């Protein structure tokens, strides 16, 4: 007893023995680090070789059906049933619910089939709808920001040329064919010479009907020679001829304009140019344009981000 007591008295405490053990040179420099390496490799290996999740064999709560592991939400089922029957879900019959569920499962099958067939790659409508859906999500937060009057006015000031009122013109568009077009056998050069002569005659006061008969002009058919709004005239004449028309005053005749369908000569009967609209009179348009510009900016930024994250390769000789 005395010997054991003396042994107990001289034996170090457990904690001290533990510290002394851990501080052993071989343990500290070799064994413990090795254990750490092994544990780390084991953890990495376990995550790497984790087994694939097993397919679900029953419908998880919150879903009404699984179609090839893709869930049909219970909430969607209720909403669809109420929408199709016009009644509260609780008041719908089992037959109605079965019909709606069958339709929803059919739609899910078709959607999955569409993915298998790679329809987003091959069908324009699908691609456009998907792109529109993405843009809708991008634009949604912006739409919550109501523009102030100052912002609208600044936008109006920056795009003042867009906002005009009125503007009409009555113009004749005379056309001289060439090069076999519409049975005309003269060359472009010949047509231009004839057109220049016709312009001289018109500017000297010759009637349009005389000039048309004498030189072989026809009415192009782009405008109907009655007063029309400027924006309509622009649509009918096209950008090039409209630009020429805007330089003409009342009674003036343009120089010949060579285009693909022949040589045109414009005769302006009467023009009342558009006048700038004051802000208050075009507020609604400015508001819509502002919103559209903000949405376009958001879409452009989204595309910039997508491009920065994508690896886009172009075939030789291609550029964008």
């Amino acid at each position: 007893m005395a010997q054991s007591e003396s042994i107990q008295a001289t034996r170090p405490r457990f904690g001290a023995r533990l510290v002394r053990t851990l501080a052993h040179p071989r343990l500290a420099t070799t064994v413990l680090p090795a254990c750490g390496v092994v544990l780390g490799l084991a953890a990495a290996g376990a995550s790497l070789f984790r087994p694939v999740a097993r397919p679900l064999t029953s419908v998880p709560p919150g879903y009404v059906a699984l179609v090839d592991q893709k869930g049909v939400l219970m909430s969607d089922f209720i909403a669809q049933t109420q929408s199709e029957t016009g009644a509260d879900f609780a008041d719908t019959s089992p037959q109605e619910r079965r019909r709606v569920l069958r339709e929803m499962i059919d739609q899910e099958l078709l959607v999955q089939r569409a993915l298998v067939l790679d329809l987003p790659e091959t069908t324009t409508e699908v691609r456009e709808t998907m792109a529109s859906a993405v843009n809708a999500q991008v634009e949604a937060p912006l739409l919550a920001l109501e523009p102030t009057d100052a912002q609208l006015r600044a936008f109006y000031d920056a795009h003042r040329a867009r906002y005009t009122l009125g503007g009409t013109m009555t113009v004749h568009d005379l056309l001289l064919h060439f090069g076999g077009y519409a049975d005309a056998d003269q060359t472009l050069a010949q047509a231009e010479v004839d057109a220049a002569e016709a312009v001289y005659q018109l500017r000297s006061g010759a009637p349009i009907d005389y000039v048309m008969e004498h030189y072989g002009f026809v009415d192009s058919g782009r405008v109907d020679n009655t007063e029309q709004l400027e924006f309509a005239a622009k649509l009918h004449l096209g950008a090039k001829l409209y630009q020429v028309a805007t330089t003409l005053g009342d009674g003036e005749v343009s120089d010949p304009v060579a285009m693909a369908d022949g040589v045109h000569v414009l005769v302006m009967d009467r023009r009342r140019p558009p006048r700038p609209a004051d802000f208050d009179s075009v507020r609604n348009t400015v508001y819509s344009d502002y919103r559209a510009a903000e949405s376009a900016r958001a879409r452009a930024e989204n595309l910039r981000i997508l491009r920065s994250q994508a690896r886009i390769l172009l075939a030789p000789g291609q550029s964008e």
Partner: protein
Amino acid sequence: MLRWQWVAAALIVALAAGAVAAARAHGERERLARRLLATPPGEVVEHPTLVRFAFTEARPLFAQHCAVCHGADMRGTVALGAPDLRDSVWLYGDGSVYDIERTILFGVRSGQSKSHNVTDMPAFGARGMLSDEQIRDVVQYLLKLNARPHQAEAAEDGRVVFYGKGDCFDCHASDARGDSDYGAPDLTVNVWDSGGDPDSLYRSIYYGRHRIMPAWLGTLSLEQIRALAVYIHVLSHPARRGSQAAAG
């Protein structure tokens, strides 16, 4: 055995017991979560156990995700136009668990096609659709509808605008009681998400309102969304608060 061996043994037993208790608690939680979701939305509040579980789950979720807009007290934020969730006035649906759940799932004007997105409040003033005076008259009419002090003559002019040029009745209904299919508020209950003082009413009409709520499907689990829906439903229905008391 030496003392340290007894200590180690006791420690191992305690750890094992703790692990078993944690596993059991986790299992119970999973069972309640499945049951919460499997129960039809209209029937959840009839089960105090599920209501209690929903409250336990939803409180931290609401604090983390919802309070930033709807307020920690769920009384809404006028500056954001985020509604009071504890009153009985609903923009969409009738405040049922299903309707609240649907709003949380897909949001309001979130960009998702299933979100509430039929229309919004147009900017009558910014768009030049109504004059300044007409808008102020409509404000007076709204004050009159809510039995608040108003200018009688202006209110009458506002009524004409409400049913005429403004076409306000088109969304807010001919009795001005709103339409929860559109999210058009009831204008007769004196509940104003963006402020009910004349200046705020004026701004709502002048600049319009196009508030959004994000879609939480994909961010929160279905169980979490159901728990939040139950939580909000019970707290917004005084008659239901008995089930909250029963839930503890």
